[in-house]
């Protein structure tokens, strides 16, 4: 989780990731940031995020992202 927070803070330090639960629906992250975020997550956690996971609810909060990463790791 800390690694994920570090990635997010590097991308945009102005967002309160601990409390923000609407990162995508609230338009806090734009599409370029999301692409960069996915690349970083894939590299850091050695997973592959396919289009299947591209749902707003998977990226709306740090917890949701973390849950998605763990599910992909289990599947792979």
């Amino acid at each position: 989780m800390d690694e994920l927070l570090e990635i997010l803070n590097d991308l945009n330090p102005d967002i309160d990731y601990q409390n923000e639960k609407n990162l995508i629906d609230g338009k806090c992250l734009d599409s370029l940031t999301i692409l960069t975020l996915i690349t970083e997550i894939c590299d850091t956690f050695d997973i592959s995020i396919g289009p299947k996971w591209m749902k707003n609810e998977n990226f709306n909060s740090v917890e949701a992202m973390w849950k998605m990463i763990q599910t992909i790791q289990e599947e792979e």
Partner: protein
Amino acid sequence: MTITSLTFIVFAFATILAYYVVPKKYQWCVLLLANIVFYAYAGWKAACFVLFTATSIFFGALGMERVLAKQKALFAAQKETLTKEEKKAVKHKNQRRRRRIMLFVLLANVGILCVTKYTDFALAQVNSLLAALGGGEVRYELNLIVPLGISFYTFQSVGYLLDVYWEKISPQSNYLKFLLFVSFFPQMTQGPISEYGQLSRELFAEHPFSYKNYSYGMQRMLWGFAKKMLVADVLSVYVANVFANYERYTGITTLLGAFCYAVQIYADFSGYMDIMCGLCETLGIRLKENFDRPYFSRSIAEYWRRWHVSLGDWFKNYLYYPIGMSDWSRRLAKKTKRRFGAHIGNTLPATLALLVVWTATGLWHGASWAYIVWGLLNGVFIIVSMWMEPVYVKWKSKLGLHDESRAFRAFQILRTFTLVTFIKVLPEVGDLRRGLGLWKHIFTDHRLPTGVGQLLEFADTGKLWLILAAGGSLMMLLVSVLKSKYQVRDLFNQLPFAVRIILLSCGAVLVAAFGGMAMYLFGGGGFLYAGF
């Protein structure tokens, strides 16, 4: 069926009545029946194309699901015996089978879209090439009829197919329900392009009658009719004048004509959305919103997040992300980041994805070089601002400009509106050459109009219509400003009942009388985006 006709009004009321009269579990059947009536008016040829798309994608999605179901059954039956590697091999094999089904159905449907929409354009390019090479001429044009709403329903259906392929949703197993999703009449000719997950929830839920939904929906429909018939249809006469004869007018008058086009296309497209979203609201159905005060955007990228939102979302979900997230794209990001730093490493894959997206967006809007250039211009502005972001931050800091200062925000909004207007007019003047000619004329004709008469020379419909269009445009601006802080319809509905009735009645009479007259005099009624 023309949306601004008495026939449509009767059709809409009959649909609303039938929707609430039948038992709630059959409400979706009323909508399907309404679709059939709508298509009967549009011609059965169009219906054949929709039926093909609905049928092929329905069975394609079920085919992919069956492969997945068999795989799940196999894994459940041999849970103890299959090794991890064997499971991986089965998954890989089944994924290839599902991909084959998806590609076959996808290509068949996109193929029809391409053949009907782009064959003449492609043949024209072949002819030009042959002529340039001094070879023989292959002079034939198919002049195929482009089926009603093909760009919209094909994209919506392809989105569904890909969502099933990516296992984001489970396929619909009822053919008639799926047919309703593909052919839902309010969004047939101009969208919005809905996602299955969202629209199916609305279509197949039971909706009890709600006075609030009904009155809010009716109010929105009236507002949409006013935008279309009192603003867009009247402005269309002025815009046609300027675009056809811009050489005659001064540069400033031509610029004013271009701004009129920006207002016209917004009133036209968002007016249609208001009519259809309003109609759906009376039924308790929420359609995806396509506009979010786009002319208040502070950059081209933001503008495209607020204009034709459903098309932008479609390209983002089904083209931009898949390209940007692909393995080769990630490898490219990794390599360039190591060599040139984070900014270039992150921006380069997005740039390539955006170039594909904006070429496709241009082609989606029309089969001409003017539209391709229009699409690429939008893309180039977005890409350049993405690359220049660190430079802008430095400049703003040096010049002491703050993003949230009112003056700077106003400057950004005006700059974006002007840029958007210039890009918008390019494909609309006739062809690319004339579009560029209009740009040149605005910048090189320095004659000053001798008075208001010459400035508004193109407005040859009489003062009454000019006042009506200007008044309507100002009302649109006022509503947009209010929308930034309030729910405008909630505000309106706080007025005393009698006042609301008087205002709505006056509005309805105004729209019916002047809108009807405008249609008779200027021949309005058609919608700009229906051509896409």
